[in-house]
């Protein structure tokens, strides 16, 4: 049985509304994926025009898994995400707890604290190039006038410090994100359990440990998942600050693909790298989702 006589627009209303999205995403997401998958089996090169185009099978993949640049980039990307995100979570939790208290100017502080997160990444990169500069930068100036450094250090220019310098930038830019989400989570918590624990006689620390934290777990997981998946995407800041250097010390996967495709003009090889990265991201996000599901169920 159906509503047969009604006009066909009404009958297919839900599909009609979603149709533009399907077409749009069909071309962009899935068309792109199909294309890139196909290209990854070719040696296509591009200099204004397609200059080379043969199907070469899995050669690109064989090359990729042995490619020290790509492997270093993968390693760096995960070091960055693996260090920056937990730090951002901890700082975010701490700052959110502070902002959740009854303090003066809370609204203004909250507004100010979101600024790093929405700043154009390219501008963020430039700001920190100023900060890190070894000749006049603020960081060197402060550290030297406090006597911590005896001579200026080009933080972005040394292989030992460059990646850590970028991690700090990521922490600066994205701690507001975790702060904001955790703060929203804190404010959405019911006050009743908190008050019940007060009446039960619990101290502030006991309340936080036994009542607040367990209730906050879902929010923390959402924040972690989103932040981790975003950290892997980092591109603009590295592009503008170090462009992967010095050497390969700050090379990250996004940059490797970019250089292969648009500097070395090996679209085929870049496509293979793309497929590998996508593959890793999908596996990773599934693992994260699985862990979250497990914790949520418990």
């Amino acid at each position, binding site marked *: 049985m159906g509503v047969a006589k009604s006009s066909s627009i009404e009958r297919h209303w839900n599909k009609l509304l979603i149709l533009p999205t399907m077409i749009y995403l069909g071309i962009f997401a899935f068309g792109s994926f199909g294309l890139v998958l196909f290209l990854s089996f070719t040696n296509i090169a591009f200099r204004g025009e397609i200059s080379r185009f043969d199907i070469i099978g899995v050669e690109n993949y064989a090359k990729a898994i042995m490619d020290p640049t790509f492997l270093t980039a993968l390693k760096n990307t995960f070091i960055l995400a693996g260090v920056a995100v937990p730090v951002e979570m901890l700082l975010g939790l701490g700052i959110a707890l502070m902002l959740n208290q009854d303090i003066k100017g809370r609204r203004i502080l909250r507004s100010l604290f979101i600024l790093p997160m929405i700043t154009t990444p390219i501008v963020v990169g430039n700001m920190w190039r100023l900060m890190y500069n070894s000749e006049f930068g603020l960081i060197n100036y402060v550290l030297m006038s406090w006597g911590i450094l005896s001579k200026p250090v080009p933080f972005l220019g040394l292989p030992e410090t460059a990646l850590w310098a970028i991690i700090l930038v990521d922490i600066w830019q994205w701690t507001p994100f975790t702060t*904001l989400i955790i703060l929203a989570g804190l404010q959405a918590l019911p006050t009743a359990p908190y008050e019940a624990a007060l009446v039960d006689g619990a101290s502030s620390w006991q309340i936080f440990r036994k009542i607040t934290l367990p209730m906050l777990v879902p929010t923390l997981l959402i924040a972690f998942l989103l932040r981790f998946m975003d950290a892997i995407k980092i591109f603009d800041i590295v592009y503008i600050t170090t462009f992967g250097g010095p050497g390969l010390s700050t090379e990250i996967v996004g940059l490797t693909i970019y250089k292969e495709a648009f500097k070395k003009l090996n679209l085929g090889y870049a496509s293979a790298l793309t497929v590998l990265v996508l593959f890793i991201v999908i596996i990773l996000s599934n693992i994260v989702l699985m862990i979250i599901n497990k914790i949520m169920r418990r």
Partner: protein
Amino acid sequence: MNAKHLIKIITYLGIIVTSIFFLTPIAYTFFTSFKTQVEIYQYPIFPKDFKLDNYFIIFNPKLSGRFILWNIASSAIVSFGSMIISIIVGTIAAYSISRYRTGGDNLFFMILTTRMAPPIVFAVPIFLIMKYSGLINTYLGLAIVYGAFNLALVIWMMKSFFDEVPKDIDDAAQIDGWSKFHVLFKFVLPRVYPGLFATAILCIIFAWNEFLFALLLMQSPYNQTLPVGIAGFYGERGWEWGQMAAAGLIAILPIYIFALIIQRHLVRGLTMGGVKE
């Protein structure tokens, strides 16, 4: 005195340290934008005076060799255009998903993936598609690309707003005698206008800030967007630090204003509707 006071003191100290950490780079850039190339080395923190030289230079193509005004125009056109595209396409899809669960979990995952995947994985195919469809170097081309990236955001954010409008409203309006078209545009949509506005602003912010595709798809100095236009400041006298700082501030000022307007919905946008405030 007691634990309560201790917590208060720690809180205020923490707030001060946090504020310094978050605001120093922005403030430092602000100060630097008033320093000449020489003054940068003379005045480590505060500028000698608030000279606007750097600002005049970057806006004058003859002096700086850049086209900031053109870049601003490009950014505005592309941001606004892409916002229109994704809002129209995404809002109606969000309504469909909210009300009819169209597509079920598969569609959810599909749309989520487009947001989870790093943009770089689309770089090669989109570059080729744009190149061979003739949309490279056009505002429309870049707007379409940004529209696609923002679509997931619009759908999930608007879905969470639509979910807050009780479905009884749709049924009531239909029983009143209105068609489904009227139900959506006359009765449901007006109730999510604030959400729609916030979503639109978020779209604009994301498009405004985007760098990679702007770099790939806009190749003339006149139609490049701001992030590309202000990326490098290596001039005849080495790095033009002051000008770089000034240009950066010009780029982020509108974003700061927009973000402050829609603060209330920022969390929802950042979590794709997952966390509400």
